């Protein structure tokens, strides 16, 4: 029964999630609830029950984080000292910039929250819309 649910209901959702620029997706129906997250993206420790490439099905929990994405194509450079996962952030600050043809495009954090995830490494090429940081408010 569970296998059939996976095949018929979960797999199409998983494939849609894989192809979309999402970090987390929660689906609630009458008889089940599931949540997709990018593997490693949010520091998940829950065991995976249905792997399709880079995602895992984990129990639903918590608020959906806010994701800062790149507005340009370029190379991401972290500010010094670099913010780290789990760090508490208070007040507006630039976490990084994305360098495009010599122009520095700042990646700005506003308000207060916790840096839940860092999806990129310093010096990595990034494309438009690519997730850079996740913030839990």
């Amino acid at each position, binding site marked *: 029964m569970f296998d059939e649910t996976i095949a018929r209901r979960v797999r199409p959702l998983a494939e849609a999630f894989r192809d979309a*620029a999402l970090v987390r997706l929660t689906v609630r129906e009458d008889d089940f609830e599931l949540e997709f997250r990018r593997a490693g993206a949010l520091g998940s420790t829950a065991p995976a029950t249905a792997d399709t490439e880079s995602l895992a099905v984990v129990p639903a929990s918590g608020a959906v984080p806010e994701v800062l994405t790149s507005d340009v194509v*370029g*190379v991401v450079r972290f500010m010094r000292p670099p913010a780290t996962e789990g760090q508490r952030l208070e007040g507006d600050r630039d976490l990084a910039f994305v360098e*495009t*043809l010599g122009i520095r495009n700042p990646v700005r954090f506003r308000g207060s929250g916790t840096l839940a995830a860092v999806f990129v490494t310093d010096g990595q*090429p990034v*494309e*438009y*819309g690519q997730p850079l940081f996740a913030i839990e408010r």
Partner: protein
Amino acid sequence: MFRKVLIANRGEIALRINRAAHELGVQTVAIFSEADRQSQHVRFADEAYCVGPGPVMRSYLNIPNIISAALISGADAIHPGYGFLAENARFAEIARDHGLVFIGPAPAVISAMGDKATARRLMAEAGVPTTPGSDIVASVDEARTTAEAIGYPVLLKATAGGGGKGMRAVYEPGELETAFATAQAEAEASFKDGRMYVEKLIIQPRHIEVQVLGDEHGNVVHLGERDCSIQKPSHQKLIEEAPAPVLPEGVRDRLHATAIAACRAVNYTNAGTLEFLVSGEQVYFMEMNTRIQVEHPVTEMVYGVDLVKEQIRIAAGEALGVTQAELHPSGHAIEVRVNAEDPEHNFAPAAGTLGRVEFPGGPGVRVDTHVYGGATIPPYYDSMIAKIIAHGATREAAIARMERALSETRIEGVKTTIDFCRDVLRDPAFRAAGVGVEWLKTDFMPSRHVALPV
């Protein structure tokens, strides 16, 4: 030869370039918008970068993101395809300034040919016949003086124009003032350039264009002509063929010689097309397109030359792979553009999700497309979803083969131009060959639902 080429385009032409590059052993980098994430041109490239959201201004025309994608991927050249940035001299310059080879002619040549008034002047200086007309006119009064000198009917054209925008036919002096104002306003709105010129309107001309290739070593060849007279009321081409049928004695050779002379006059390099209006034995230069054309496959089928590979090889500094003496046309080829449009409602474009999709095959049939069953057609882009090309020993054989190919084609989910084009292929005037650019609008479309041979 290049190691890696970035393809600054989408759809069938991006796939076409991807194929040519791979056959040359060159790696490819695709760019795509968020609306094209599932597109085949992304899937077949060696790597791909999202450069922006669906609207073209923010993605396929986003010069900083496209150049940046080329740099971070380590590409050494950019192929612009057609449309988008293909005839943008500034883009070609920026690419060059970042150490990237632009696969096309020099920026100065793109710029000169892109400005229609400049192109006409350069061509006239090179002895290429142009339609009688003016340089830029400063006012409607100057336009009237020119119109009276060359005689009505005249065509008012925006020097930055294209795709029928900023263009008005004027048959009588009384129509001039209103036509000038509306054409100029349209040009201002579409191209941010309202400069206008006047030329003689040639009645029922045929649109015949000559394909050329020039390398950086001074070699220039032509690959014959294409007849693109089957055009929608918006003057967009719908059916093209090579060679042009039923040309008066001497006109074909004159077209070819003129095209070569024009290329030599501007030191043209890479692939290009000179468009002419042909009326009886009169030949008039219209414009030069400094890029690969949508309809290039009919020339490839007839000459057995891969034009996109030649473009890449030329840009890499290699000499042309063929000489004029080696180029001989063989048989006849026809291309039908399959557009997601409704011919019954003025070819209104249709976006949506495709259902079942089946393309033809068999001898002498080529299909260039990026769509597949279940593919979505985003609303942001050109409505062309496939090109079907048929080659035969004779024009009659090519038409029969095309009819057979279209009968095998199924595209569900959107309205297309397939059935409309099948009816064109059956029309006695099309079969007799040599119709003008207005024929589809003024003769075929009004009569289409009256009586068609089964």
